[in-house]
């Protein structure tokens, strides 16, 4: 291996690492706020990428029917809750289950966007409301279950969502057009405009999330819920709101990641799972609770993957996933007393 190849691998690793970093952020966010280990996070990536590909080839993404179906189910569930005398927050329900899906339908069925940025907006409108809808349909009824049960539900959901992805998008993979065709030659190393876009958007999202959590009242409410769920509820922060919001953010981040990665790699209906899991490896480096450590972990995963694809490409996945063993071992060295679980 010469320096040029090494630099190319590093560059590759940074670009992929950025995507894993986004995954890791979303996973840490959802876990700390709702205790859900959200395995299907990667499915949003694949959904967004494949929906974009469908739009670019002039087809209607069939995902719209899934979104409308979920929205209808959510409305039915809320109506039943109302009928049983439970308190239903209709404002947020109408926002997630009516307004946003209606906008998505309007974009896809009436506007039929041709400009790339409009297509991006359409895909984000299509995927983002799926987060809170999934939360309401799958996880909210189990809000008091153990982390373990929530994890099993999460895996079940993953199974269903991958299957639905296969049904809606078929088994063929797709790539989308790059956001930037620019290329620069820096000392023999080619830097593509797309990789600059990926890094730029990732950095922007990370900074935006930082400001959201540090400076806005809603962000602070989410943080409070992450630190102490009961305490936050007593302070008047509804658990359901934090669930809706964190899942919406997770879906949004997933969709953005999908749009970013789709011009670089071919995405299949089940590719998202592996991308999401690599985000998990990164998140576990941070103990599922630290954002900066998760970001560092994501860069590590990206580099590890890129160099192992050079040296032992067949075992690339094995090497990346086995990384969690030394990480967990290291973490377990630092626990003396038994942790008591809820």
């Amino acid at each position, binding site marked *: 291996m010469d320096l040029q190849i090494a630099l190319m691998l590093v560059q590759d690793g940074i670009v992929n690492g950025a995507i894993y970093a986004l995954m890791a952020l979303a996973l840490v966010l959802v876990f700390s706020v709702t205790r859900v*280990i959200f*395995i299907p996070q990667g499915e949003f990536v694949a959904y967004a990428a494949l929906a974009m590909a469908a739009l670019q080839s002039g087809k209607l993404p069939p995902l719209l029917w899934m979104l409308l179906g979920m929205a209808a189910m959510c409305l039915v569930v809320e109506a039943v809750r109302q009928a049983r005398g439970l308190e239903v927050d209709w404002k947020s329900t109408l926002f997630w289950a009516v307004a946003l899906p209606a906008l998505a339908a309007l974009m896809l069925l009436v506007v039929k966007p041709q400009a790339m940025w409009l297509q991006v907006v359409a895909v984000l409108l299509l995927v983002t409301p799926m987060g809170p809808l999934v939360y309401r349909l*799958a996880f909210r*009824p*189990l809000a008091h*279950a*153990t*982390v*373990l*049960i929530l*994890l*099993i*539900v999460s*895996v*079940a*959901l*993953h*199974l*269903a*969502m*991958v*299957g*639905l992805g*296969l*049904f809606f998008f*078929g*088994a063929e993979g797709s790539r989308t057009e790059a956001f930037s065709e620019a290329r620069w030659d820096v000392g023999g190393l080619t830097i593509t405009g797309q990789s600059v876009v990926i890094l730029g958007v990732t950095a922007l999202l990370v900074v935006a999330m930082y400001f959201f959590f540090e400076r806005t009242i809603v962000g602070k409410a989410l943080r409070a819920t992450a630190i102490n769920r009961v305490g936050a509820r007593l302070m008047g922060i509804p658990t359901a709101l934090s669930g809706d919001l964190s899942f919406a953010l997770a879906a949004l981040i997933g969709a953005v990641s999908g749009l970013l990665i789709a011009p670089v790699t071919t995405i299949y209906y089940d590719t998202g799972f*592996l991308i999401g*899991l690599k985000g*998990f*490896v990164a998140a*576990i480096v941070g103990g*599922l609770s630290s954002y900066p450590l998760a970001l560092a972990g994501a860069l590590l995963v990206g580099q590890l993957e890129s160099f192992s694809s050079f040296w032992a490409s*067949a*075992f690339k*996945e*094995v090497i990346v*996933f*086995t990384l*969690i*063993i030394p990480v*967990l*071992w290291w*973490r*377990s060295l630092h*626990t*003396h*007393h*038994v*942790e*008591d*679980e809820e």
Partner: protein
Amino acid sequence: MKPQVLVIGFVALLAAVWGFLPPFTVTLLCYIGLYSLVAVGLVMLTGVGGMTSFGQAAFVGLGAYATAWICTAPEAAEWLSFLPKGLYPWVGLVLGLVVTALIAWGLGAVTLRLSGHYLPLGTIAWGLSLYYIFGNLQALGGFTGISSLPPLEIFGISLASPRMLGIVIWAVLLLAIWALHNLLDSREGRAIRALKTGRLMAESMGVDTANQRIKLFVLAALLAAVSGWLYAHLQRFVNPTPFNLNIGIEYLFMAVVGGSGHLWGAVLGATLITLLKEQLQDWLPRLLGTSGNFETVVFGLLMLLVLQRASTGLWPLLAGFAQRVFKLQPPARALAAAGGASLDQRQLPPAGEQILKADQVTKRFAGLVANNAVDMDVRAGEVHALIGPNGAGKSTFFNMISGVDDPTEGQVRLMGQVMQGKPSRAFAALGLGRTFQHVRLLGERSVLDNVALGAHRRGHKGWIASMLRADRAEEAAVLAEAMRQIERCGLADVAHTPAASLPLGQQRIVEIARALAGQPAVLLLDEPAAGLRHLEKQSLAKLLMQLRAEGLAILVVEHDMEFVMNLADRITVLEFGTVIAHGTPAEVQANPRVIAAYLGGDLA
């Protein structure tokens, strides 16, 4: 009618019709048996032990690939040339079990000390990795796999046909269920069940929870490996596909749908899922117009529904139905100490000897000083009360003298030993028994079962002895001891009722009985009188006085002043983490700082 009769009837029926079933049904039953074997391990892990694994399919793969490699690889044949060919599968079985045990132990060792969700996450990574390793190792045939495995042979009889091998499969499954059933109905079984309710309680009863969890995980993995071994010789062909992560998830699904708390739930779940998959693969593609693994959508949504609506699975429904139809009776339990087995006895120290001593104990949480140089000791044959207003640091202190947490500075000594860094079970081993402020009982288990857990350390029969029922004499002694403590605490009427159905006050007494079953030298009681009615308080006080007379050292943390003042020999008062008074009840009651702390106001 006893439940055993139903089981024997089921087995007899299966045996009677086995020879006449059509070949297709026999093959299906073989697969159901194989899947049940994996699922039953998951029931032990998930429903009983409160852990889970998505990687069981990978362990099945290890079992299958081990024997496939031994039976077909030229290198293996070279090394094993001294053995007759017919024995190769057995070498394969041993290899598969050894490799599986090593890997499962390693995975368990790195994840099981951490909180519960790291193990399943680890198994996802492991399940994926092994699939890629199988697929990419040319020595194992890559993604095409290994074909032309020999059939199993036992005593020269070839088990090539599913009808013959199926007998072995179901015999292994039924034996496994029998052994696991025995294990659950034993001293070790109680410890395993306690894992789910919270490890802190189990550790305080002297259970090494990390060790129990690793053993349970290895056991489930071994069951999967055996299933894989049988699978390889049934199919006579292996490739990576059936050992994929998705199949691992399906195994878990079988356990959850069937009823993850019940061994037979695994068989029910495996049967339902296998039949359902058969049907779905048939008509889903026709319905949807394309082919693909769409049954995963149905499975995923079904699993969701089961977890939301019937989290205990379908077996309890079936069992309830059988109960009504066949009028089943719960098995009676032997309570007499038969066979002369005796439990470990502890020599109580003479009255007045210092048992537990806290020396300048300080605990800081970042900037907050929760305990500031606290000194206190508890002596044999006395009741020492620790009181103080809310937030005085009593619970923090309690945690440090019971091994839940370590002091930042200072020392805790138990029976003269320095306890810094030692876990709760080391405290239990030295004779510390405790109760919890928030009651920690296995709610679904009987009072007797709960109290018997307290005697865990006093027995010694392990997993193997329990599985083979070689522990009956000791178990009877444990139950007899538990019953003695139950009677002593006045709970004899409710000994066989589920603990959760008792009022809270009585549950606290169950915790005391559980602590007593461990024959402690020192008893730590965290608000024992909370929730008790007046008469119950009186009988609790009487019990504690009796225990004091027997030479026990007792520390009570309590808010009920009347209870404390009438009972305690000495009292220590905490306020803002600092000891503000110490002495007899009369001295403490007269102390102006105590009065100020409780009533407010200045010390003027």
